[in-house]
């Protein structure tokens, strides 16, 4: 092929390349990068108290105001509490179920299907189910706790976040179980055999073989689970609408309220940027650790 000809072909290939990437790029441009950049502009402008007035450029004033507001601090604290309530429990439960169902025994297929089953629910379905279970009049949870007719767990600021967390953990059990099972399958059998030959009993094998071999999965699940928990919205909206008394007003829910209740997208943008930074840090931590693990493996 002559140079001229191949130059034409290369140009044709390049053109095709751009054409294939373009549809995705347009969508990303409009629905990811534009709104992302817009957040920074929104953060620098204060929304007027009455609709119709022009937005006012205030520099970093609004950012400082929001970041130092007690409302934001409370929301952030609640979000972190929510993460701490859901992620570790979810991982431990998933791991427990996965270890119990890992052995090749008769009937394990049924247990595995049951433990995976909650992935077939949605956040909304799980929330509606648990809302009825927590309901002071008809809820079985309240009935069994002997709290029928009392202040419902969702109306009590002391228990509302826990109730939301229980709902979330249950909905995520399936995913957690699937991830942990996949991790367990990655542990080579000969390691167990070696441990068995060395005379390690079940508990020792778990602590000295399974857990260390599973640590990448555990770490990974912790980070990903945290990212997901930071983005929680549906269960809050259905179960508590951020209440009672803002006790479950997590970051994303407060952003939603800022925009769709208070019409203040300036404040929302500052919080959104904060959320982005948190997720970014978690992602970087994960990439760093993954990188280090790769170099260990060599």
């Amino acid at each position: 092929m002559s140079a001229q000809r191949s130059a034409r072909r290369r140009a044709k290939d390049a053109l095709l390349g751009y054409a294939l990437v373009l549809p995705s790029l347009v969508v990303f441009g409009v629905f990811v990068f534009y709104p992302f950049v817009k957040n920074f502009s929104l953060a620098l402008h204060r929304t007027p108290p009455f609709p119709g007035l022009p937005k006012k450029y205030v520099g970093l004033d609004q950012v400082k105001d929001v970041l130092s507001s007690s409302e934001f601090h409370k929301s952030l604290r609640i979000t972190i509490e929510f993460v701490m309530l859901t992620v570790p429990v979810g991982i431990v439960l998933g791991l427990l179920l996965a270890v119990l169902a890992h052995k090749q025994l008769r009937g394990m297929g049924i247990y595995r299907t049951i433990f995976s089953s909650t992935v077939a629910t949605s956040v909304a379905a799980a929330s509606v189910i648990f809302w009825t279970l927590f309901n002071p009049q008809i809820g079985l949870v309240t009935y069994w706790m002997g709290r029928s007719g009392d202040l419902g767990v969702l109306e009590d600021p002391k228990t509302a976040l826990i109730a939301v967390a229980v709902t979330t953990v249950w909905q995520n059990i399936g995913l957690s179980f699937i991830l942990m099972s996949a991790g367990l399958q990655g542990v080579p059998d000969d390691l167990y055999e070696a441990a068995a030959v060395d005379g390690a009993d079940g508990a020792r094998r778990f602590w000295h073989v399974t857990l260390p071999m599973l640590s990448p999965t555990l770490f990974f699940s912790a980070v990903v689970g945290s990212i997901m928990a930071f983005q929680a919205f549906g269960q809050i909206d259905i179960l508590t609408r951020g209440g009672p008394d803002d006790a479950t007003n997590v970051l994303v829910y407060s952003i939603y309220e800022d925009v769709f209740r208070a019409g203040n997208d300036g404040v929302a943008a500052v919080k959104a940027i904060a959320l982005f930074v948190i997720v970014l840090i978690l992602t970087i931590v994960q990439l760093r650790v993954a990188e280090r693990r790769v170099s260990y493996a060599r």
Partner: protein
Amino acid sequence: MSGITLSGVTKRFGDTIAVDDVSLTVDDHELLVLLGPSGCGKSTLLRMIAGLEEMTAGEIRIGDRVVNDVEPKDRDLAMVFQSYALYPHMTVRANIEFPLRSRKVPKDQRALQVAEAAEMLDLTDYLDRKPSQLSGGQRQRVALARAVVRRPAAFLMDEPLSNLDAKLRAATRIELVELQRRLEATIVYVTHDQVEAMTMGHRVAILDRGVLQQLGSPQEVYDRPANLFVARFIGTPPMNTVRGRLETAGGTPVVRIGADGVELPGAAAAAAAADGLLEIVLGVRPEHVEIVTDGTPGALTATVEVVEHLGHEQHVVGRLGDGQLVTVRQGSHLPAPPAKSSVRLAVRVEHAHCFDPETGARLG
């Protein structure tokens, strides 16, 4: 009609020259082997003929047509790859049919041609299997069938046998030769295996570092290697190449190696003299060296290093006085000299080759 002509074909990757100004003609109905060590540029050359790789300079003709600007699919060539490049998700039938589909061959015609190709390569029973359900040899035949089915002007084969085990390779060699004869196909065949080259090629083109070293029939390149590279590359065990000083003893030209002297073939001596060389490299194939009794004139003295017994023959490796090694190939009925013993080696001068030690070029 369907010959392939390369003129000044060159390929550069940055500063390195992969193929350097190669010109050669593949005749119609010829099986031409491109032979060379890995990295010699033979595969790159083949890919340029196919149009998969762009040329830096030169011209390629297929038949009467210059194909420099022709897309691979329009060159009327079929290629067989080292990995066979079968489409794993398709049945054998679909694989063989694949090149016909893109060419809009009518359905009946396709079925006919597929059946014919499958029959020819003994694949009729396997048409509905997937490649993963076939043995290595069967996959290789599917790759051939996929090439044959199109009835192309020429076939390009890139180490098609190198993924087969030794026994199957030997059998497939014979089948390929038979197939070539039956189809009267024009084939350019790339390999690093000199046995394939010698047994299959009508002519062999030997490449080293992108440069065409020699083009000739297998017998020609064996009997008259054009240079030291070819001399050492073709033949097992390789040709002995021994360096020595040019002298004249009693009017006849002699190569002085250590204390011994070997008489030179006249033509070589004349060529060496014309070039004003003081030293030359003498090349002798191991079968052209004999162990002789003491006192034979014009023999070399060597110490036996090792004797390799191969059953039907033996290789005696001896070290000359100046440290150079010489291998003798002899029948296993002859007595093997003990190791460390001293022997006299006679060179059959009429079969000796002489090379310029600097350029490596053949003399005479």
